[in-house]
């Protein structure tokens, strides 16, 4: 099998797509207003005509590159290119103020690579074991897993549990449209032939993540673009290397764990890693003044999330974050179903993804250290030209999946809806994750009851089911418990 994986990955075509993906990702990540999710959603249509391995690796390259690329504008412009780089601003911009932006970018590049490396190793080690465990799951366990995934997504995304649940439920409701997979009954189709096969979730994702984000950019389209300073000496110093090697791998571990939790994205990974580094530091008061740890920790943490997010996605079909949700879409387009069977039926592909992700991280390191000046130039592309081009990419991308103009309308509708939802302080991620987990929950719920001839006791019969039940209750109670404890602590103080 090892030989098969090596011959599958070590080809000119695969290397070309990985380098293209990482390069595109860094450019997208570096531009403020373009997120990693948006980048992956925009590049996704290009993979429709490709084979599975190059297509998925192109997207993974964009993902890895964009998460790292966000640090470029965070350090140079004090504006995070992606939300994942928000924590990097705190110390990164202080370096630029001292005229050491090159050194800061070098620290960010090496730390991102180390964080990514840790997460790929975890992906390689944990995923096969988790897939083996998931093979023991049957319909009740998969139903409870989907419910757990939905509960955790609702509780950690956004500021309000009610809004998270509403958005997740909206996504599930969209998934009802079309012919019911068990009875063949047409649901919520309103006699529209386009709705019979269900709502294609790629246009929905492009609308919610890319189009709505582009609409938000229009709000400040007439604000002049910031001009970045020149970059030199990107190679970290000897002292920096010591700190990076101590901080970034640990942050990578934290990021990987956070990535595994469904719904927790790279921004959470970065902030948790930053505060953890500050807590264990001998000089926490220096954080925020421009120190090496202040860049190494968040950058190691956010790139650590990339591999972690793929673990539940590949092993159980539960997306670790919004990008993983889009990758599920990419795999589905290729006729592949993420889950434990992927590891037994498409072993070569799975291990090619692991190896390809490692190469993507390596590419990021090489491109980051050698071509930073080029990426800094990308920052001068004006948003007044870029934003209308994003509109076209959204339209063509939605049309390309089924060559249907109906899908373009769907994308535009969800783009407008996503914009207003964000205005009302909703996070749109639960909607997309609901769209993916909803059908999984429904089909397994009904299949389980079919197995038990209508007895609900089937959901309480196995230890795995109990684990998911307890985790779901714990997750839903958590925000209230935390709020209660915070209130009591404030009263005591």
């Amino acid at each position, binding site marked *: 099998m090892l030989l098969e994986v090596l011959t599958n990955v070590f080809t000119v075509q695969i290397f070309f797509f990985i380098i293209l993906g990482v390069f595109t990702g860094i450019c997208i990540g570096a531009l403020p207003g373009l997120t990693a999710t948006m980048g992956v959603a925009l590049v996704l249509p290009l993979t429709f005509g490709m084979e599975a391995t190059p297509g998925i690796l192109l997207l993974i390259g964009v993902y890895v590159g964009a998460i790292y690329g966000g640090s470029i504008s965070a350090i140079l412009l004090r504006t995070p290119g992606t939300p994942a780089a928000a924590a990097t601003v705190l110390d990164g911009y202080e370096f630029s103020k001292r005229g050491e932006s090159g050194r800061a970018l070098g620290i960010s590049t090496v730390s991102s690579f180390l964080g990514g490396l840790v997460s790929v190793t975890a992906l390689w080690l944990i995923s096969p074991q988790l897939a083996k465990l998931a093979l023991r799951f049957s319909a009740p366990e998969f139903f409870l897993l989907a419910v757990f995934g939905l509960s955790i997504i609702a509780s950690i995304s956004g500021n309000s549990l009610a809004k998270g649940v*509403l958005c997740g439920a*909206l996504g599930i409701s969209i998934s009802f449209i079309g012919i019911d997979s068990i009875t063949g009954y047409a*649901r919520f189709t309103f006699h529209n032939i386009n709705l019979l096969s269900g709502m294609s979730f790629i246009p929905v994702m492009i609308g919610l993540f890319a189009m709505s984000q582009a609409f938000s950019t229009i709000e400040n389209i007439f604000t002049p673009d910031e001009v970045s300073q020149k970059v030199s000496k990107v190679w970290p110093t000897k002292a920096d290397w010591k700190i990076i090697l101590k901080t970034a791998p640990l942050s990578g571990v934290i990021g990987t764990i956070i990535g595994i939790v469904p719904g927790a994205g790279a921004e959470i990974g970065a902030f948790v890693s930053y505060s953890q580094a500050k807590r264990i530091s001998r000089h926490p008061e220096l954080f925020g003044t421009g120190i090496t740890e202040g860049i190494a920790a968040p950058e190691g943490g956010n790139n650590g999330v990339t591999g972690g997010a793929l673990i539940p996605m590949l092993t159980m079909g539960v997306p670790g974050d919004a990008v993983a949700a889009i990758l599920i879409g990419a795999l589905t387009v290729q006729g592949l179903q993420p889950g434990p069977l992927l590891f037994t039926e498409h072993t070569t592909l799975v291990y090619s993804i692991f190896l390809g992700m490692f190469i993507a991280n390596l590419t990021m390191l090489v491109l980051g250290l050698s071509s930073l000046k080029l990426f800094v130039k990308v920052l001068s592309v004006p948003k007044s*030209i870029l934003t209308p081009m994003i509109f*076209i990419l959204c*339209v063509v991308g939605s049309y390309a999946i089924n060559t249907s103009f109906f899908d373009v309308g769907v994308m535009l509708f969800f783009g407008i809806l996503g914009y207003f939802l964000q205005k009302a302080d909703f996070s749109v991620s639960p909607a997309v994750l609901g769209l993916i987990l909803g059908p999984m929950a429904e089909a397994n719920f009904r299949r389980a009851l079919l197995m038990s001839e209508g007895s609900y006791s089937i959901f309480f019969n196995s230890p795995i089911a109990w684990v998911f039940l307890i985790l779901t209750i714990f997750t839903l109670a958590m925000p209230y418990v935390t709020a209660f404890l915070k209130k009591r602590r404030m009263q005591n103080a």
Partner: protein
Amino acid sequence: MRKANFIVSGVFTAFALLIIALSLTFPPSNHGVPGPGIFPFIIAALIIISAVALLITTLIAGPKLDSKIDLRSKNIINVYITMAGLVVYTVLLPMVGFITTTTVMLYLYIRWFSKRSWWKCAVISLLFTLAIYFLFGLVLNVPMRFGLVL
């Protein structure tokens, strides 16, 4: 935000009631196995509970913690105009054709947003449209020839 939360609660409740009304017309459960309407019914109930919870928490929070949502400033009006333009573009696209509609749409947006000279905007619009046309049409084999013109 307070007003928005009330509106959102109302809209979601109405949406849930519509789901319930439609799912009641679906075939019933058979020998304890849920029919196609059960899960939509459960999710609709969840929407109503969450909408009520949002309403109550907003009422409890009171107007003191309220923040204003900007929906009428000049910057937001620009977003609405852009949205309207895209709706028109989406309608015209299959009728007129990709190259013509997209070049014109791009030209208008870039000229509006960037205030560059007309010929620079025209060149950028045409080159980008052609690049997308050839990438999707020739490299990725997506049928891009449609409409009366091209």
